[in-house]
């Protein structure tokens, strides 16, 4: 089986803070990480490799420093890494991003394409299904588990609000994976030692199969009209008192607001 996993380097948004005085984002010192949903997608691929034997390729689209997550992927056990980078991709929204990735994926033979459900910097959950559409492949999103019958059929467990669904799809197909699906393995020490000995293939526009008009800023139907730090509403009352008095204040408030009679 041949598996491709799409991964993205993202700022660790849990480490981003707002300057309470200026209301602006503090991005200094925020580490860049492999997007958590993508990492679980990668783990799913590596588990399939452990169980059935598989060739796992990772691909990322991003600036030169995104090389780091490809090295991390090598250290986790992938067989091939592709770094998609070209000025023509710059300024892409989700649709243009999905076109670029689909363009690269047309050049790779695979049975299963895995993406994370969504990236923590954008939370859109769009690129996976959009790639599936461009490649005319079936998709299953919000994946919690996946089993392969050893031939060509996948049985999948998809998370929904009320519980889950079991679905069946034949290869080739596209899935998007939740970070709750598994605990991604650590990089192995031996893998780390070799991570920079392995080749990362750098692909640009010339290496992929896509209509240029679908790429970058030109290929992006959406644009950011404006962006702003979230404003906080003025603080209410604050009390630092003994427990009994505090409870009294809470009850008074609840009565004031007619929550208690």
């Amino acid at each position, binding site marked *: 089986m041949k598996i491709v996993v799409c991964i993205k380097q993202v700022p660790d948004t849990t480490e981003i803070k707002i300057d309470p005085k200026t209301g602006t984002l503090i991005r200094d010192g925020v580490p860049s990480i492999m997007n958590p949903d993508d990492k679980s997608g990668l783990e799913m691929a590596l588990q399939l490799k452990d169980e059935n034997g598989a060739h796992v390729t990772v691909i990322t689209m991003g600036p030169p420093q995104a090389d780091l997550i490809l090295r991390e992927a090598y250290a986790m056990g992938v067989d091939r890494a592709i770094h998609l980078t070209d000025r023509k991709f710059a300024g892409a929204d989700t649709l243009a991003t999905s076109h670029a990735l689909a363009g690269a994926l047309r050049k790779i033979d695979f049975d299963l394409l895995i993406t994370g459900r969504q990236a923590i910097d954008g939370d859109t959950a769009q690129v996976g299904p959009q790639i599936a559409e461009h490649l005319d492949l079936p998709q299953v999103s919000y994946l919690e588990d996946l089993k392969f019958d050893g031939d060509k059929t996948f049985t999948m467990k998809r998370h929904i609000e009320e519980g889950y669904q079991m679905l069946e799809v034949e290869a080739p197909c596209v899935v998007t994976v939740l970070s709750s699906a598994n605990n991604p393995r650590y990089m192995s020490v031996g893998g780390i030692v070799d991570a920079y000995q392995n080749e990362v293939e750098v692909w640009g526009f010339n290496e992929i199969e896509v209509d240029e008009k679908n790429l970058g800023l030109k290929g992006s139907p959406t644009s950011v009209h404006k962006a702003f730090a*979230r404003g906080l509403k003025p603080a209410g009352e604050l009390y630092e008192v003994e427990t009994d008095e505090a409870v009294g204040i809470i009850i008074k408030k609840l009565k004031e607001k007619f929550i208690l009679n």
Partner: protein
Amino acid sequence: MNLEDYKGIYVFIEQREGVIQNVALELLGQARKLADELNDKVYAMLLGHNIADQAQSLIASGADEVIVVDAPELAEYTTEPYTQAICQIIEDRKPESMLIGATTLGRDLGPRVSARAATGLTADCTKIEIGKKGELLMTRPAFGGNLMATIACKNHRPQMGTVRPGVLFAMDADENRTGEVVNYEVKFNTAKFKVKLLETVKEDTDLIDITEARILVSGGRGIGNEEGFKAMDGLAQTLEAEVSASRAMVDAGYIGHERQVGQTGKTVRPDLYFAFGISGAIQHVAGMEESDLIIAVNKDKDAPIFQVADLGIVGDAKQIIKKLTERLEK
């Protein structure tokens, strides 16, 4: 693409087992407001099987026309049949804009449709406004809720957006409203149906929907352990409230993901939100700041949660829960 050809605000009506989901009514309420402002119409797209009897209620909730697509292929949701149906409507009717609930279903369907229709989709909007040229300006959180971005889709139609449940308001149903119900037939290309749904399993834990709760008793790191959560449960029972939590507590396994409030959990807007031992990371605040009344208890008087709280108490959350429960039980 001639933008002038595109008219109407289309709302995807999500139903599960024939039950129309609240988010669909919230979208209709918002679409109604936008349409009134734009002097345009609201179209509800009701897809499913044996669901036509629900159409009238959508008119009462704000639709001018209900497009019913009743087909056995749509009895249960899978991506491809629903995408084909919506895309055929888009091709036929040329909608100006389209709103879909940002549920696990809507977030599966939305991007597939947008890619097929080659148009823009804004995910998880929290606010929709009308721009100078009558275009939609959709605002959504990014960077884990740290940043708000307003997105426009200038030259492509329909302008699509998904909206999280609990963010917008449904209008009060008005049985006197009039509108049209049309049956719409879709020609399916069944050769493309490749995903087989084997079964849908419901789990008890997911039956509680914290977005529906009037009062939420929410806990964070300051609640500590299982014992702390038990105390919260007691208070919630006394107040007829539901228990929810910050991400830290979900990650620590004290409570299920379905009760997580915040950017990666649910957006809630109860009448009363108790934040016990929650520091108020922006990810959390993004999911609860619109609550009517926020009461926060935290040891650290500099905790950011106090910046959004209407009433803040500096103190030990566990002690206060215990005492408050005792007092209320009396």
